[in-house]
């Protein structure tokens, strides 16, 4: 253990595994937004991470409006659900609007044009975040009960922790992912999405309203990012306007790791990346986390650009 991981014992590694699982669930939710959009129009939606950042701000604003900014004695479940819904709707609608304004007209332009446009949208979001809540990190109210499962059940004094926060993230993220899978697999809209992803021209020929399907895809991606935003705030206890850049890059790495365009792959990649990140922090220290993540990104793209579950896609 000491050779691979100079900073940690077996117990610490197990603790990191659990942290990684919760972080991974968040990364996976954001990664799904990248992979859905890429799968359908082959655009790396560069602004997605910053959309997530704006989602945390919306959640904060809703919680503040309900008088919960300083925290609460009892867990206000209804308020939490309201905050999650508000952030989800906000991110979903904003993502749809961005598609309508900044990407739709460029759908048949050379590949770089919509990507540059997405970078522009990302910059706009960042600056909105800066104007909205200023440059310094903002504390997020600590609303979930602080119950510690491992110690309560085993009674042992251990470094391994599994709190209500971890449980909350996993209990929210997994149903959302399953729900997404159901929508894609069983609804008419989901079927249309798969058709457009396979062959846009052909989908058009059989009478699918391609614009509507693409809008819907952006909506779905935004909804998931909004949910992830609230969970991120509750789990990590703060947010800042620069949050989106690294969160987005991590999520994109996860999507690529799983095989971009592949929904199951994005979820898998998210969990793997979360665990890898937490391990790097435990073993080599927090300042090396992003170096590890980005190095992984470069390595996968170089050696297996199709990712773990992806298929070969030809150059357009």
């Amino acid at each position, binding site marked *: 253990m000491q050779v691979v991981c100079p900073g940690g014992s077996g117990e610490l590694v197990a603790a990191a595994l659990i942290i990684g699982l919760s972080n991974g669930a968040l990364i996976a939710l954001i990664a799904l937004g990248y992979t859905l959009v890429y799968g359908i129009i082959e655009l*790396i939606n560069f602004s997605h991470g910053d959309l997530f950042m704006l989602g945390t701000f919306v959640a904060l604003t809703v919680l503040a409006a309900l008088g919960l900014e300083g925290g609460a004695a009892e867990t206000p479940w209804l308020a939490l659900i309201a905050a999650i819904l508000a952030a989800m709707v906000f991110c979903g609608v904003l993502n749809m609007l961005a598609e309508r304004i900044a990407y739709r007209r460029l*759908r048949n332009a050379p590949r770089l044009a919509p990507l*540059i446009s997405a970078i*522009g949208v990302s*910059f706009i979001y960042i600056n909105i975040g*800066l104007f909205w809540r200023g440059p310094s990190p903002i504390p997020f109210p600590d609303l979930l009960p602080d119950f510690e499962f491992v110690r309560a059940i085993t009674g042992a004094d251990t470094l391994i922790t599994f709190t209500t926060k971890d449980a909350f993230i996993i209990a929210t993220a997994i149903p959302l992912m399953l729900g997404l899978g159901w929508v894609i697999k069983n609804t008419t809209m989901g079927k249309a999405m798969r058709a457009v992803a396979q062959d846009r021209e052909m989908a058009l020929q059989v009478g699918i309203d391609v614009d509507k399907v693409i809008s819907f895809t952006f909506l779905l991606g935004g909804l998931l990012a909004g949910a992830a935003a609230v969970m991120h705030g509750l789990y990590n206890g703060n947010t800042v306007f620069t949050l989106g850049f690294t969160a987005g890059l991590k999520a*994109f790495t996860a999507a690529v790791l799983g095989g971009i365009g592949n929904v199951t792959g994005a979820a898998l990649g998210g969990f793997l990346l979360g665990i890898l990140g937490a391990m790097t922090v435990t073993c080599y220290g927090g300042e090396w986390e992003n170096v590890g993540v980005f190095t992984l990104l470069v390595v996968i793209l*170089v050696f297996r*650009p199709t990712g773990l579950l992806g298929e070969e896609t030809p150059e357009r």
Partner: protein
Amino acid sequence: MKILGRLPVPRLPDMSDADQKRAAIFLGALAFAIAYPFIEGMFGLRLQTKLIPVLLFIVLALGLNVVVGFAGLLDLGYAAFFAIGAYTVAFMTSSESPFAFTDTSPMNFWLAMIVAAIVAGIFGVLLGAPTLRLRGDYLAIVTLGFGEIVPLVIRNAHEVTKGTQGMKPIGFPELPFVKWGFATEPWYFLVLGILLLSIFLTSRLQRSRIGRAWMAIREDEVAASSIGINPVTTKLFAFSLGASFSGFAGSVWASYLQVISPDQFQFSVSIFVLLMIVIGGMGNIPGVIVGGLILGGFDRVLTDAISGALRTLGSTFDIAFLREADISRARTLIYGTALVALMLVRPEGILPSARRKMELHAAEEDEGEAAQQRETLFESQR
């Protein structure tokens, strides 16, 4: 335009009127640039220190233009090579360098400059060789990741790079009869000279065999490789050449600032340079220069001026909102909006090359056609 025609521009036998006009504009601008330090006092301006970074960033933009404009490879980590160049010079000439030889005999700056360009070029090859086989947008993300890794490693490897404290002092250029130090004129002319050299090199490259090969690859990789152009080596050459341009500019930047730290090489620098060429017109050298002047001028000169004007306005009419106006806070908002708007309205930039313009508008016509097809389809269904 007849006046320009009568200027005593040396008329080469194969120069068309348009070329002659361009040469006249270029020579006029050059004469102005050379005379500027001597005449700015007459207008009560003191912008030389602000112009030096603008000119140097145009050098960067010209290098990135080789990668993005000529070869069509989107490089989002260009600042990483800038950092590599800057730190190479620091390692070669600074007393804080991890190498022992700099304590007694630091390397001559001119030599260090060349070393910096070569080292950055080597990093370009190392990163490019495995990644250039990938599709375009994957390359963008790999370079983006690389652009993040380099400043992070510089920050974390404190023993070697002094981390966020930064490395200082860095060697000065040396020339006989010129006193280097904190006087601005020598710097101004050095950077202007480098800019001219870059313009010369890139415009020669554009018209060379390799330049035409880049263009062919950008427009249709399959067709290009079927007529015998090796796409990987051709792209790799563009990529590493761009990287060594960036390293070269980085070496001058380090010496000019005298202190370098990882924060100076963030993602926003890469985007800033990219924006210069997008605004000006990808692939067109005069366009890139114009874009660089507009954006650099806006960033270094106009933001302060506009904020100042707004504040004066605010205090005269007693508007609290304007009194504390500082549009540098809205900088990313302005850049972001500019990027989106440009892509939507004029994706070819202000001064595009004719070829680029054609490509982009051909796509638009396709779109028009597709939309029409869609209409008829939906009509016939009803």
